[in-house]
């Protein structure tokens, strides 16, 4: 008991609140594990019998002036003055040896650093030991290190330039050989081919799924009408998995941090990123950096939660920068003061060079650049009341939205800002606005801003669009209103790489879907409507990644209605249903699309693969199905001209594949026939066996039935089949299929 009281008293004295100490978050200094063995094999491996000599807080200062006894105290005073600035010297911690013969100093001294508490903290329990380790010894080691680094090369005068070393380093330095040995060149070990999956002979795509404890990667083998397993691992991740934007890495989340996986044949761990209790991760678009996020709920619910974000270099695993603070600093703060940080906190500028990332917080936009990982121009942009920012997917242009203020006296504003110059390229003031949503087209050519405006009575809102043409001179803005401007807008989506967009508008349960184009043949400079499809059971839009095709999906409330639509021809290719579907994801090539029922429902969990035109390819059921993600592909190296040429001569190329397809389907049906034949034969064998046994037992059975002769019905009766037809009545009814 006494020990416990001691600890409590001590921690109170030190101002340590045990309830706030998260033991998981205590990080031991690098290279020192204080005897706590790590179960991590890599760390374990590096641990080459390093032990604490107890002299870690001593430094040796060389190149001091050699002084006689009279000046000893003066020099000591000078040294104390210098080193007291850098750390606290232990009492009697400065020792300058003196030559016993000449009484002259020897030109060096030892300095032992400490922190004042340490002396009070001896002989306590293990818990306190940890405290001590964490707060004090570590502190004094730090101080010694710090002092060494800061004072090394300190010029006392022209001839006396300090040479400072850690006392512990002396053994090592003494052992350095006199003669220089050329370092042995290590044989070149080729790294993993991270792009191997792209060279698949059948040009298939990969997808990762999580169900139950398992995470599995599959090839989508549409020809075989089934997925082909690549890699499976139970408990691969502790929360979810995510592909990097170009598909090179698969990131998994663990208690200790994040890890990325990839490689030629199977998935090997390529790098780990230490961040305890990481919750969310995000890659930069060029997948050079990984952002990890962790937030800790405060013990007092009124406090904001603590947020820690780290940015790592993906390939080297080095932490480039970390950000810590309360959640308020990473969000704009909702109206009620309750708002968590919205992920991703850091939004990366478009393009592959990963140059800038931006953070939105109250009244400020902080834009960082990745060369130094500091703010551009060393300061954030002040934009009062900004609520949303959005990068162009290709250029370093930031669009931002500031809502109305002062009860409408100050209009709302949408602006485009060039980074890093911070020049406003274009801005538009908007009146009586309730909300704005910004949608960039994937190649950064257009920006659509959906504007919700109040009606005159302010009781309801109606929506319209402001369309920015980014690539044209002066960035012209066009206003688009729907035919019926009171229609509610349910979904909006740009055609990837295209100039068209689709809108679901109108009232549930049967809204309309309209398609618009930013440049038709007749009208290059103006937006024009292509078509409106009336009364569709849809509430979400999924364009194919190559454009042209779109799935109008009725998720959730609509039970998973799917309509595969060709926007070039403006015709429906197929309608289908994946009952209760919750997610839809196109493969990166736009050839196949997966619809999934994840474990938000308990039933029918699993996924279905469809071809782009709505043919069901195969269906897989998995209980507790959590996630499905296609492995992204990096952009094609083919130039636009080359692609066009291929498209023109498609017939020539497709021959080869058609032949392959046919081979496979022949093979499949051959295999199938073979399998069926084998099954039939096996079954026949069973039946034969049963029949003969049945025959053998006939007499015994007869006995059991008191002599009743036969088991066979046909012998007892004479069967006559008499058929007659009677037409009584014919009625025709048209039956409306109830929805």
């Amino acid at each position: 008991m006494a020990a416990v009281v001691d600890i409590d008293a001590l921690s109170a004295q030190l101002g340590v609140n045990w309830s706030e100490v998260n033991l998981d978050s205590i990080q031991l200094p690098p290279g020192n594990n204080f005897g706590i063995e790590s179960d991590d094999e890599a760390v374990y491996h590096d641990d080459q019998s390093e032990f604490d000599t107890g002299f870690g807080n001593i430094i040796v200062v060389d190149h001091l002036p050699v002084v006689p006894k009279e000046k000893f105290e003066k020099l000591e005073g000078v040294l104390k003055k210098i080193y007291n600035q850098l750390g606290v010297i232990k009492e009697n911690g400065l020792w300058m040896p003196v030559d016993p013969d000449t009484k002259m100093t020897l030109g060096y001294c030892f300095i032992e650093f400490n922190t004042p508490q340490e002396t009070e903290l001896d002989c306590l329990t293990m818990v306190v030991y940890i405290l001590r380790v964490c707060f004090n010894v570590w502190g004094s080691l730090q101080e010694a290190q710090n002092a060494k680094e800061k004072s090394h090369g300190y010029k006392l005068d022209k001839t006396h330039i300090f040479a400072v070393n850690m006392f512990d380093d002396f053994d090592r330095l003494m052992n350095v050989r006199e003669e220089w040995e050329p370092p042995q060149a290590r044989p070149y070990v080729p790294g993993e081919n991270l792009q191997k999956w792209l060279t698949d002979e059948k040009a298939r795509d990969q997808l990762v799924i999580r169900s139950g404890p398992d995470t599995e990667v599959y090839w989508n083998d549409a020809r075989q009408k089934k997925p082909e397993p690549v890699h499976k691992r139970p408990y691969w991740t502790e929360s979810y998995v995510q592909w990097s934007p170009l598909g090179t890495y698969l990131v998994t989340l663990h208690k200790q941090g994040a890890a990325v996986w990839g490689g030629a044949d199977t998935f090997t761990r390529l790098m780990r990123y230490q961040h305890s209790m990481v919750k969310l991760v995000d890659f930069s678009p060029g997948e050079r950096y990984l952002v990890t996020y962790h937030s800790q709920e405060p013990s007092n619910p009124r406090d904001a939660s603590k947020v820690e974000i780290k940015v790592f270099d993906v390939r080297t695993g080095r932490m480039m920068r970390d950000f810590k603070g309360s959640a308020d600093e990473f969000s704009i703060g909702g109206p009620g003061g309750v708002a968590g940080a919205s992920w991703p906190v850091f939004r990366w500028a478009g393009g592959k060079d990963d140059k800038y990332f931006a953070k939105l917080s109250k009244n400020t936009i902080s834009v960082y650049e990745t060369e130094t990982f500091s703010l551009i121009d060393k300061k954030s942009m002040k934009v009062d009341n900004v609520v949303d920012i959005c990068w162009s997917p290709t250029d370093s242009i930031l669009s931002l939205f500031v809502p109305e203020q002062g009860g409408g006296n100050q209009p709302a504003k949408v602006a485009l800002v060039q980074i890093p110059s911070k020049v406003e390229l274009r801005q538009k003031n908007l009146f009586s606005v309730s909300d704005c949503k910004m949608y960039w087209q994937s190649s950064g050519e257009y920006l659509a801003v959906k504007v919700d405006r109040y009606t005159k009575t302010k009781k309801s809102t109606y929506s319209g669009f402001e369309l920015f043409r980014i690539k044209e001179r002066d960035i012209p803005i066009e206003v688009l209103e729907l035919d019926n401007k009171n229609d509610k807008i349910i979904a909006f989506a740009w055609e990837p790489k295209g100039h068209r967009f689709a809108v679901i508008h109108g009232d549930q349960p049967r809204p309309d879907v309209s398609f618009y184009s930013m440049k038709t043949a007749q009208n290059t400079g103006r937006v024009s409507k292509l078509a409106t499809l009336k009364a569709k059971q849809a509430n979400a839009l999924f364009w194919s990644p190559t454009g042209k095709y779109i799935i109008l999906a009725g998720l959730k409330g609509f039970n998973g209605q799917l309509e595969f639509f060709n926007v070039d021809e403006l015709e429906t290719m197929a309608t289908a249903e994946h009952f209760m579907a919750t997610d839809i994801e196109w493969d990166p090539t736009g050839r196949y699309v997966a619809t999934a029922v994840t474990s938000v429902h308990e039933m029918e969990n699993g996924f279905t693969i469809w071809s782009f035109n709505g043919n069901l390819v195969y269906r897989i059921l998995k209980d507790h199905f959590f996630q499905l993600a296609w492995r992204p592909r990096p952009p094609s190296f083919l130039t636009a001209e080359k692609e066009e040429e291929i498209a023109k001569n498609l017939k020539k190329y497709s021959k080869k594949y058609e032949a392959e397809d046919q081979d496979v389907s022949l093979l499949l049906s051959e295999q199938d026939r073979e399998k069926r034949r084998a099954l039939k034969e096996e079954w026949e064998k069973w039946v034969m066996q049963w029949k003969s046994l049945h025959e053998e037992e006939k007499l015994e059975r007869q006995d059991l039935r008191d002599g009743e002769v036969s088991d066979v019905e046909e012998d007892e009766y004479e069967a006559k089949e008499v058929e007659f037809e009677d037409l009584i009545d014919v009625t025709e009814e048209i039956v409306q299929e109830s929805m």
Partner: protein
Amino acid sequence: MTMECVNPEGLRLDARQLCMHISCMLNLAQIQNSSHQTLETRMTPILMKGHERPLTFLRYNRDGDLLFSCAKDHTPTLWLAHNGERLGTYRGHNGAVSCCDVSRDSSRLITGSADQTAKLWDVKSGKQLFTFNFGSSARSVDFSVGDHLAVITTDHFMGVSSAIHVKRIAEDPQDQVGDSVLVLQSPDGKKKINRAVWGPLNQTIVSGGEDTVIRIWDTETGKLLKQSDVEVGHKEAITSLCKAADDSHFLTGSHDKTAKLWDMRSLTLIKSYTTVVPVNAVAMSPLLNHVVLGGGQDASAVTTTDHRAGKFEAKFYDTILEEEIGGVKGHFGPINALAFNPDGKSFSSGGEDGYVRLHHFDSNYFNIKI
């Protein structure tokens, strides 16, 4: 056989009122080919409403002209198997009736009930002939070859562990006694034995229940001869067991969403059928290589309003290829009982919704090719 069954205690309502022949109600059942070919058969089911509580068991007599149904209400009911006309009820049980069996000559009926009894009835008159009393619910009943023996399983209750009883059935009801010839105890007495049936030549008894294991017992010695392999066997409670007409093989359905076909003598697993919902009932076509699985989400777990969500379908599978052929929808609730007419040309299903649906196959059914 000729049918002149009149139940003296039976309701004197017009049979037509009881049997809702609903072909006019556009309630069409369909067998749809799962591979989306346009092979569709439209069968008009006969909807038989005679029970007020969920169905538990269905049984055709050997001739296939009578259908016996058991439900959680207390009265087993007899129907004409070709048009669904109700012939009468068997009154006397005081609890849910879980199972029944009819003798080969269609003269005797045995029923097992939660009122802790199994009763013998005269099929024709509806009279109770004998009552077997137990200390707990009777779960399943089965007549042996020759109808001189019956196997009855009982649940565990108040310290009584679940057991399999073998009773001798006397030729003359006057001579009937209640003593058990043989009592078999399941290794885990706290788990229900949902079904026990006779093996070939009455030499064995095959049982399956909540402990997921199928056991074959010797009826001479009472010894356990075989039990199903844990690896290949069911993973969750076995709900139903149906044997082939020649006692050579049998089919088990389980909550683990599979049905498995076994050799009755060697207990070799021959086939396995996987579906998406727990299986409550199984049946094998005597005519074609088809098996039917019925089931659905547990009634207590049905929270969605859409009936499609529950998958209350009778699913047809090809026996040999283990592939799904199609499904028959219609029940609003899980399917608890399935039975094939011995001629293989019709089948009936009983649901949690209290209905028996009688389906006569049309010619398309017999031409299904997969």
